[in-house]
């Protein structure tokens, strides 16, 4: 858990830290040295600059003294002195005084500026005191001939400068207090003749040098020392140590006393040095204050406390350490934070993973949204968990399904009615389905104990024909059909091997399917086929079966007879051999859609090539694979066709003849009418013209002629009537027969009345489908006939016997009625006349026939007309006579109920 953290801690951190340390160490060291050096350099610089300044100062003094020595005024004075020109001397003295004063004022560093003549007497002297610069009056001028500086200086050559030692000024032999360090510069001066006449002396306030220059900058912890060559302190931080020299305070303070010999010797050697002595750094620089003598020098020493130098270093080091510490701390903190950032999510991840590993697949790890690798990892991880979940769910489902499947399998296994057993490779039964267990009445446990052949065959030994035995050898599925009443029917036993990867027998599945029923069915089918075949062969019509391409596959005996091809010759050939292609194709197509087609009349061809007329009915059946087979039942109707044709021709001829006959009769009757007109006309005219001359006989003859003419006219008319029946157009419709009958009776009223006939009409006369006018004609004719048959009542009228008359009247009745049958209406017109003898009942309807017994008007055509009208309505006409008591005739006819009446 902490590995990463530690790793990050230790390794990088250590690296960083180490690096930091190394770097900072180097840095520190470098910086330290640098600082130190800088400091020291600075220090040195300071000292150096001081020294230079001092040098410059001293040099400036040299120049000053030199310049003064060369000053004109001084030269003048010298000259004047030499000339002993007192006025000039005073003048020049004044000028020199002025010069010295100015000089002093301006330079401010000279305690005294003097001109001392070669005798050693101060000639001119300018002093500086607290009050300022003043010229020392003559009286105060002294003799300085014994002074060393004088003595030394006069020895010098032109241009050389005498520089004294730096020591405390003595006044009157003792050290002046306050202490006044003094440095004397003197040059010999010469007049114009170039002879040394005197010296110029500059008393330099060395304080300026010492205080102002050398101790200009006193750093903290620094000390400035000025030593003379003897080691006496000219300048010392401790003022008491200063001026220890013999000439001065004579304190004995000396560097040789303060420091070890080598060190002091080193210092006093005049070599520039910088070194650490004790706890102090020393800068040693010689000041060559005498330019003409390089043996004379002071030693400028500046000390710097080590601490001063080192303290910045220390400070720096401390700072550095702090910084490093901070950095390290920072690094630590940073890495902590960083670590946290990394390890926290990782920890969360780990925790989450643990939870998931423990089985909680629903858990998802959440990490605050900061898009980095960790979150990616987390997200991916979550996805993975999701997937795991899904997969786990899948597995669960699969398992359920599997279980279900297994359950289903078991169900199926047990539901199958076939007897199934599963055997191991030794053919022992390891599993049996319910059907098997029930059939053999054996439980699963008992099964395992017995050998299979005991159960199946009831034998102690396996049978060689048993498929199980065979399968062991062949490793192929084996079958056997067994039958017997002992096993209860016929069974098809099939055995299927179960092979392992190497192809060796691992087990057997045995199936016993009861096929008793099937066998029975097969037998029936066989019989059915036989029956059908018989049918085919004994059928009178030719039966031909073709497939979709029209190839003949069934051909019966009658087909052989019709077409002449033997079965063997035609099977496999196309039906087009015997039947024209076009028509049949169309019907084959159509017959696929409708099972039975109508009867077709087509032509076919026999083997001999003869074209025959055929009547064919075509039916289709669907066979396997969506294909069709067609069965054609064919009848040779060539003969019929021929006969039909003849009939048609004959009918046609008959028709023509009939028509011609009708026309002929029409014309004739027409032509016959014409002369009648003339005959009657002239007969009338004859009568009219000669009626005076005519006697009774003449009148009789005229009458007879006229009557005959009329008769003939009537006959012609009647013939025309009959013809009309055959020629006019009929209009069929539903008409009320009752109304028609009433109409007819009304129109015959006069005759009925005259003949005193009672007419009874039934109420139930129906509406029939007929031609109204023709029906009217029909009834008219029948009624008229009925009236005729009953004779006139003249005899009765003349009789005085009323009762006879009445009796006679009763006998004169006509009854019209109707009886509804299933298919037609039976109408009757009944009279009470004399009746018609059986022999005449047939003939009466023939045209022109009339009964000889009665002289009736009319030609008898009427009944012929009636017959024709009834036939037109597809009805039947007959007579029933006698009706009652040997009298009466009843004319009956039927009119069919259907509207389907044949059209002529």
């Amino acid at each position, binding site marked *: 858990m902490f590995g990463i953290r530690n790793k990050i801690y230790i390794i990088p951190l250590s690296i960083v830290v180490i690096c930091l340390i190394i770097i900072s160490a180097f840095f520190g060291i470098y910086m330290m040295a640098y600082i130190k050096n800088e400091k020291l350099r600075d220090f040195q610089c300071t000292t150096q600059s001081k020294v230079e300044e001092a040098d410059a100062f001293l040099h400036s003094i040299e120049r000053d003294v030199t310049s003064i020595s060369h000053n004109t005024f001084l030269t003048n004075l010298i000259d004047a002195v030499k000339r002993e020109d007192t006025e000039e001397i005073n003048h020049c003295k004044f000028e020199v005084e002025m010069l010295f004063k100015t000089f002093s004022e301006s330079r401010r560093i000279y305690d005294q500026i003097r001109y001392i003549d070669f005798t050693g007497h101060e000639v001119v002297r300018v002093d500086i005191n607290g009050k300022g610069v003043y010229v020392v009056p003559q009286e105060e001028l002294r003799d300085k001939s014994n002074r060393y500086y004088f003595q030394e200086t006069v020895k010098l050559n032109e241009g050389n400068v005498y520089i004294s030692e730096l020591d405390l000024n003595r006044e009157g032999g003792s050290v002046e207090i306050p202490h006044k360090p003094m440095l004397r510069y003197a040059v010999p001066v010469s007049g114009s003749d170039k002879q040394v006449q005197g010296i110029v002396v500059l008393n330099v306030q060395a304080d300026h040098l010492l205080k102002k220059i050398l101790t200009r900058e006193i750093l903290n912890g620094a000390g400035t020392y000025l030593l003379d060559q003897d080691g006496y302190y000219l300048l010392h931080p401790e003022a008491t140590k200063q001026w220890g020299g013999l000439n001065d305070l004579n304190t004995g303070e000396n560097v040789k006393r303060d420091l070890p010999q080598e060190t002091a010797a080193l210092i006093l050697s005049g070599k520039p040095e910088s070194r650490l002595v004790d706890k102090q750094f020393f800068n040693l620089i010689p000041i060559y204050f005498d330019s003409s003598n390089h043996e004379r020098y002071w030693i400028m020493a500046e000390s710097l406390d080590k601490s001063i130098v080192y303290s910045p270093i220390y400070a720096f080091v401390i700072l550095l350490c702090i910084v490093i510490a901070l950095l390290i701390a920072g690094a630590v903190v940073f890495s902590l934070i960083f670590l946290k950032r990394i390890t926290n999510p990782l920890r969360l991840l780990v925790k989450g993973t643990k939870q998931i590993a423990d089985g909680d697949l629903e858990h998802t790890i959440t990490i605050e949204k900061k898009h980095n690798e960790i979150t990616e990892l987390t997200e991916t991880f979550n996805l993975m968990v999701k997937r795991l979940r899904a997969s786990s769910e899948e597995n669960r489902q699969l398992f359920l399904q599997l279980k279900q499947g297994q359950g289903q399998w078991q169900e199926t296994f047990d539901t199958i009615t076939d007897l199934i057993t599963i055997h191991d490779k030794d053919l022992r039964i390891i599993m049996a389905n319910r059907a098997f267990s029930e059939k053999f009445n054996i439980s699963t446990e008992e099964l395992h104990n017995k050998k299979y052949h005991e159960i199946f065959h009831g034998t102690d030994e396996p049978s060689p024909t048993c498929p199980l035995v065979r399968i062991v050898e062949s490793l192929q599925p084996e079958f056997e059909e067994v039958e017997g009443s002992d096993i209860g029917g016929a069974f098809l036993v099939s055995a299927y091997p179960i092979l392992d990867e190497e192809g060796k027998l691992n087990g057997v599945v045995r199936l016993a399917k009861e096929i008793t029923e099937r066998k029975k069915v097969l037998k029936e089918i066989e019989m059915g086929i036989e029956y059908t075949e018989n049918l085919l062969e004994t059928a009178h019509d030719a039966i031909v079966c073709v497939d979709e391409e029209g190839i003949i596959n069934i051909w019966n005996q009658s087909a052989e007879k019709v077409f002449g091809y033997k079965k063997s010759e035609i099977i496999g050939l196309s039906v087009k051999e015997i039947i024209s292609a076009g028509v049949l194709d169309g019907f084959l197509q159509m017959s696929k859609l409708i099972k039975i087609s109508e009867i077709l009349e087509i032509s076919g061809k026999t083997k001999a090539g003869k074209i025959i007329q055929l009547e064919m009915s075509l039916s289709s059946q669907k066979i396997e694979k969506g294909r069709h087979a067609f069965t054609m039942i064919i009848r040779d109707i060539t003969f019929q066709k021929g006969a039909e044709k003849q009939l048609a021709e004959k009918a046609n001829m008959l028709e023509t003849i009939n028509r011609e006959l009708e026309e002929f009769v029409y014309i004739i009757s*027409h032509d016959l*009418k*014409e*002369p*009648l*007109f*003339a005959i*009657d*006309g*002239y*007969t*009338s*005219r004859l009568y009219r013209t000669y009626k005076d001359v005519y006697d009774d006989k003449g009148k009789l003859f005229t009458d007879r002629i*006229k009557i005959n*003419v*009329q008769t*003939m*006219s009537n006959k012609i*008319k009647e013939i*025309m009537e009959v013809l009309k029946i055959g020629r006019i157009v009929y209009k069929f419709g539903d008409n009320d027969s009752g109304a028609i009958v009433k109409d007819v009776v009304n129109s015959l009223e006069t005759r009925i009345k005259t003949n005193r006939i009672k007419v009874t009409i039934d109420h139930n006369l129906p509406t029939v489908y007929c031609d109204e006018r023709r029906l009217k004609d029909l009834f008219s004719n029948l009624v008229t006939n009925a009236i005729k048959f009953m004779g006139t009542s003249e005899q009765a009228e003349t009789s005085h016997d009323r009762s006879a008359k009445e009796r006679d009247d009763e006998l004169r009745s006509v009854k019209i009625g109707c009886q509804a049958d299933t298919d037609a209406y039976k109408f009757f017109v009944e009279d009470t006349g004399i009746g018609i003898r059986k022999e005449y009942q047939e003939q009466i309807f023939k045209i022109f026939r009339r009964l000889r017994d009665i002289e009736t008007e009319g030609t008898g055509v009427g009944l012929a007309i009636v017959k024709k009208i009834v036939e037109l309505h597809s009805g039947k006409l007959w007579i029933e006579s006698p009706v009652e008591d040997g009298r009466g005739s009843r004319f009956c006819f039927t009119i069919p109920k259907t509207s389907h009446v044949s059209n002529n």
Partner: protein
Amino acid sequence: MEEKKIVLVEDDPDHADLITEVLVEGDTETEIILVQDGMAAVDYFQELGIEWNGRIDCKIKLVILDLNLPKVCGMEVLKLLKKNSKYNKIPVVVLSTSSDQRTIDEVYKNGANGYFVKPSSYEEFVEKVKILKKCS
């Protein structure tokens, strides 16, 4: 006295005689013009037509037309008469032996003013003609 002309188109001479007899009975003014066949009838009327040019007035009061004519049949003559604007105003009565309804219909369709059947009774015929004369 106004002269009246009746044109009789009839081929049978007996019929023609009989009819004429009836028509002129007691009537001296009427002139009967007999035409004996269809063709002659057509010619007659055409000639008449030429004569008539411009003249509205015409003396022919009636045409009696038999259907059964040789050469050109009565129906044609009827059509001719009735189609021609010159003389379709003349009344035409068709005479025939036929009582066939179809014929009657056709005759009327072609514009005949009257039709009657030659009856087998002469007396009847006389009666009819009398009525006819009264109308014309």
